[in-house]
């Protein structure tokens, strides 16, 4: 094999392995994001989660992480990727109670209380988690208060 053939073969093998091991690579990047979040570097964590999402696609793991970041970040500083990730995940799997619960929390942090109440209600119907019912009631109360003011 000459040099060009070896290099082409190597690049093809690396691309193939990269495609096959997408899930594992995304998982490792998520762990890096978790480490950054634990160290208080929320912007770095968000960047790692974005990268993991680009490579591995939308999964409940990413939505969970974005939700945690949304809860940790100051109000008004929620990453736009958080809601996008939850939307994309629920587009693919609309019957996920944890997915609806997570999106409800993100929407709560953004201030979309009516949407948050809807998601908590769906999460309660799908998963029968009493916390979701309580959160739905609270979100509905906040939504009414917002409308009233």
């Amino acid at each position, binding site marked *: 094999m000459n040099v060009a053939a070896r290099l082409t073969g190597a690049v093809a093998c690396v691309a193939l392995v990269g495609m096959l091991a997408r899930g*594992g690579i995304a998982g490792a990047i998520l*762990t890096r994001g978790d480490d950054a979040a634990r160290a208080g570097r929320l912007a770095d964590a968000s960047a790692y989660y974005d990268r993991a999402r680009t490579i591995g696609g939308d999964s409940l793991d990413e939505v969970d992480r974005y939700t945690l970041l949304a809860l940790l970040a100051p109000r008004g500083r929620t990453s736009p990727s958080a809601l996008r990730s939850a939307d994309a995940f629920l587009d693919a799997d609309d019957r996920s109670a944890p997915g609806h619960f997570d999106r409800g929390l993100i929407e709560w942090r953004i201030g979309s209380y009516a949407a948050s109440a809807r998601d908590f209600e769906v999460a309660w119907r799908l998963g029968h988690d009493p916390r979701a019912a309580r959160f739905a009631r609270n979100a509905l109360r906040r939504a009414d208060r917002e409308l009233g003011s």
Partner: protein
Amino acid sequence: MTDIAGWTYQAAAQRSLFAVVGSAALGVVSGLGPCSLARCMAMTAMTGGASRRNVAFAVSAYAVGAAVGYVAYGTIAGVAFRVAAWSSYSYAVLAAVLACTGIASLVRAPVHAHEPRVAPIGGATLLGLGASLTLSPCCAPFVVALTGISFGDLGFASLLLCGFTIGHVAPAAAMAAMASVGRKLVTVRPSVVAFVTGTVSLAMAGYYGLLV
């Protein structure tokens, strides 16, 4: 894996010696991850064709190097967290070095087989120390958790991290032993070895590049 980790952390919190066994199990689990492949490759390259005794010495030296590094995290306050903060730079350097060695292997495929007769013990120790310095996503959560749980108890922290090291170097030791035996039994064309080494190095460079 979460069960083993949870069980180990509980045992460590109760200062039970079972936690050392659990740490070793966590070491094996993390030693099988993709992050450890570069270390396994390096050990395999070092010990290929060496005698069984020499391989045992080299693997022990590698384990000692790694144990010193990991125990340093557990005993020197905050080192694990500082190293974790620098990890982006160490991953960038590692990715660049792996990419360069991968391309060099692919471009300069050897014509004659080169059989190292003696595995360098000092090199193996440095490799172990260097491996522990690049806290990878496979092992970092366990090392940080074990360090955190046993914080303030130097002896117990050292014991846990030594147990972790024994498990963590086991896959590399197994690969080194297999490579040593395999190279005596089977003759592989040097160009094939260079192609495989170069390709794996490039793949690892890409992997670490994504973790920067």
